[in-house]
Every structure is written in C-alpha cells, then in structure tokens.
C-alpha cells in the first residue's frame, strides 16, 4: 500500500479532502498541489478525511502546518477527521491536538464549520 491519492468533493461550502494510501516525503508534493489549487479557488474551509490513509510521517504533517494559517486568515480552517489509530498517534506525539481540531467522523468535522 505505497501509493497516495487525494479526492475532493464539496458539501455546503466545505471541501472534503479524502486522502488514501501513504503520505511520506515522497508523496507530500501531491498534497501540496491540492492545497495550492484550493487556495487559488478561494476555498478555505477544509475537512481532511483520513479514513483511507494508512501511513503518515512528519513530512506529511508539515504540509498541514504550511497551509493551516492561510486557511484561518481567510475565515476557514483545516479540520481532521476519521484518522486511523497509528496515523492519529503521529499527530498526537507532536502535539497537534492542542492547535487543531480532530473528529471521529467527516460529518462532525463539517458540522463544526456550520456552527460558527
């Protein structure tokens, strides 16, 4: 399971970005392209659906760190949903849950945007 894929759909003004496979230093470039594209389209409310992501290294976390401030400055955010335990552990070890919101489902993460 060494490939990587990213799919986008939109629901009520929120972009659901579904990731699959392996996000390491080799595949981060693909995710960066997706974020650049979203920003160029003025889309700042992002829920990342990790359900199909099997592996992440700090290079992958670096991508989210690079873009989250831009999203927040424009009234949006990046929210994290449906992470597998091993993937969540990496975020947790680096202290991400203090600065980012994690949800067990995409729906709950997307609803959070509507509450505000």
């Amino acid at each position: 399971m060494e490939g990587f894929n990213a799919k986008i759909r939109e629901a009520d003004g929120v972009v659901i970005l579904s990731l699959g496979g392996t996000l390491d230093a080799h595949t981060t470039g693909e995710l960066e392209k997706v974020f650049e594209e979203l920003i160029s389209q003025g889309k700042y409310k992002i829920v990342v659906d990790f359900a199909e992501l099997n592996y992440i290294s700090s290079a992958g976390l670096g991508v989210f760190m690079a873009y989250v401030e831009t999203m927040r400055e424009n009234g949006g955010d990046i929210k994290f949903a449906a992470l597998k335990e091993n993937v969540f552990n990496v975020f947790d070890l680096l202290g991400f849950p203090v600065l980012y919101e994690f949800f067990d489902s995409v729906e709950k993460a997307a609803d959070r945007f509507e509450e505000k």
Partner: protein
Amino acid sequence: MHSIKKNIKVKSLTENLGKIRTFLSGVADEAGFDKKKIEEIVLAADEACTNIIKHAYEFDPTKEIEISAEFENKELTITIKDTGKKFKPQSLEPPDLEAKLKKRKSGGLGVHLIKTLMDKVEYDFSNPDFNILKLVKKL
C-alpha cells in the same frame, strides 16, 4: 535466542522510503515485535532517512544510504550510514508547535519523533568520511 542481521543499500531518493519501511517492517516482524512497535520502528527510520535525503545529501539522487538491522539480546539496532553533510540534529526539546505554525515551518519534527519512538538514539559524526545514526528498540 535467535539473532538476525540484514542490510540494504538504496539510492538517496524519497521513492525508496517505501523500500526502507518494508525492509525494516520485515526484520522487526521476524524479531517478534508487536504491530505498534513495528510501526514506531518504521516511522523512526523513515524520519531519519528523510532527513538524510533532504539535509545530508540535499536531494542528490546519486548518493547512497546504507541501513543495517541487527537483532540480538532482545534489542533491535538499526544503523544508518550516509556520506553526506554532517547534519546536527536540533535540541532534544519537543518542538514549539505554535511558533512553527506561525512561521509555517515544520523542521525538527522528525528528530523529535525519532527520539520519542526509539529507546536509544546515537549520532556519530566522528569519522570525516561518513555519518552513523544508531536507533535501538527493545523488544
């Protein structure tokens, strides 16, 4: 008490990180580590090799990374050797995530993970021709 000794050599390319992970996952499994510890070993080695590719070799794909894995006395020792720039890891302190976030920078996260995930981490820059990083995980 069984012992294992295996090694691989790969070109310094991010596409080889998968090969490195598969190699180490196989050795750790053979040594009898549980799933969680195998994941920790694999991630630590991925972080170490990513740093070598980016910082020691600065993405020069002609360079090589040599990895040996030795299991003995209930300890797995992974030795990673490169001939690149001597890249001193930053402090042992956990990274200040909030400050990094403001600067949109993620450097240093890998080193912190390596130290958190492994039982022992030793850098040896004493030889002018190569660098050695030893990562140890207890069964």
